[in-house]
């Protein structure tokens, strides 16, 4: 049993668990959309005073902030109790493509070239993290949702706007992967 839990989980089980998470949130009277938390935090720290977009009753979103705290704990618990820290088993073709960008084959969950403390404290490394986050935050609010809100919740409800957003996610992702990353790495 423990072995079953500590090895990486299959795509079908993981996908089913994500759908289950969404349905439990619906059953509890809420919806699955993670990026709303970013807006809520902006409001909670008082940015509603300078910008009315953030002037709303953020406490009504407390349930989602608690979900966020849970997600952090989930990452922590996995690292402590359910992890074997095996390198991510990505495709050989991806390993070869990434090596051309100077990213080595996986040794754990994330590439040290981007997420080690050393990379984080270098100017270039910091800029990559900062711009990545900036675009995710800006884009998710502009598109009114992220992967959970559009790709999972929205598509499950057959929303055309969500399909357009997901097409956008891939348009941007492909542009970054094939046009921009070769220039910056």
């Amino acid at each position, binding site marked *: 049993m423990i072995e079953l839990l500590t090895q990486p989980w299959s795509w079908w089980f993981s996908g089913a668990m994500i759908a289950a998470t969404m349905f439990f949130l*619906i059953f509890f*009277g809420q919806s699955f959309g993670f990026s709303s938390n970013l807006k809520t935090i902006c409001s909670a720290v008082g940015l509603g005073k300078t910008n009315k977009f953030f002037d709303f009753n953020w406490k009504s979103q407390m349930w989602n902030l*608690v979900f966020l705290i849970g*997600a952090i704990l989930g990452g922590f618990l996995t690292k402590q109790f359910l992890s074997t820290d095996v390198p991510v088993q990505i495709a050989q073709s991806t390993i070869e493509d990434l090596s051309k960008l100077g990213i080595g084959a996986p040794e754990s969950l994330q590439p040290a070239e981007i997420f080690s403390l050393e990379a984080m404290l270098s100017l270039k490394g910091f800029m990559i993290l900062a711009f990545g*986050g900036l675009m995710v*935050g800006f*884009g998710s609010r502009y598109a009114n949702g992220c992967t959970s809100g559009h790709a*999972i919740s929205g598509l499950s409800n057959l929303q055309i706007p969500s399909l357009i957003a997901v097409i*956008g996610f891939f348009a941007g992702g492909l542009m970054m992967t094939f046009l921009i990353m070769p220039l910056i790495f």
Partner: protein
Amino acid sequence: MKFIKFLLLGIVFGIVMTKSEAVSWFRIQEMFRFQAFHMYGIIGTAVTLGVSGVALIKKFNLRDYQGNQIVFSPKDKSVSRYLLGGSIFGLGWALSGACPGPMVVNVGYGYWAMAIVFFFALVGTYLYGVLKNKLPH
């Protein structure tokens, strides 16, 4: 106490995202290069079950735990905001290898660099609030 269920769901979500490796930058690169089925399998399974479940909830007018009818509100109609906003999101997703949920899961896992990504996602969200009225929607 009324929040404990959301805490537990968040914990499950964090564990699933980590154990499925969906929080890994490597997996996101593999997805955008179309070199494995893994991420498509995860999202495809979730959406297939999601579509079926939402249809059942609507067909049988199912209620939530408090007995209220479950309603799904349609998203506002637009093309430009979803396409432009989505594309900017995608640029960031491919670069940082994480959408907002996986960012915080990674912080819990011990990747402090993801706290920087998350902080700047907050800055980006605020920037949207500032520029909102100047953008096509």
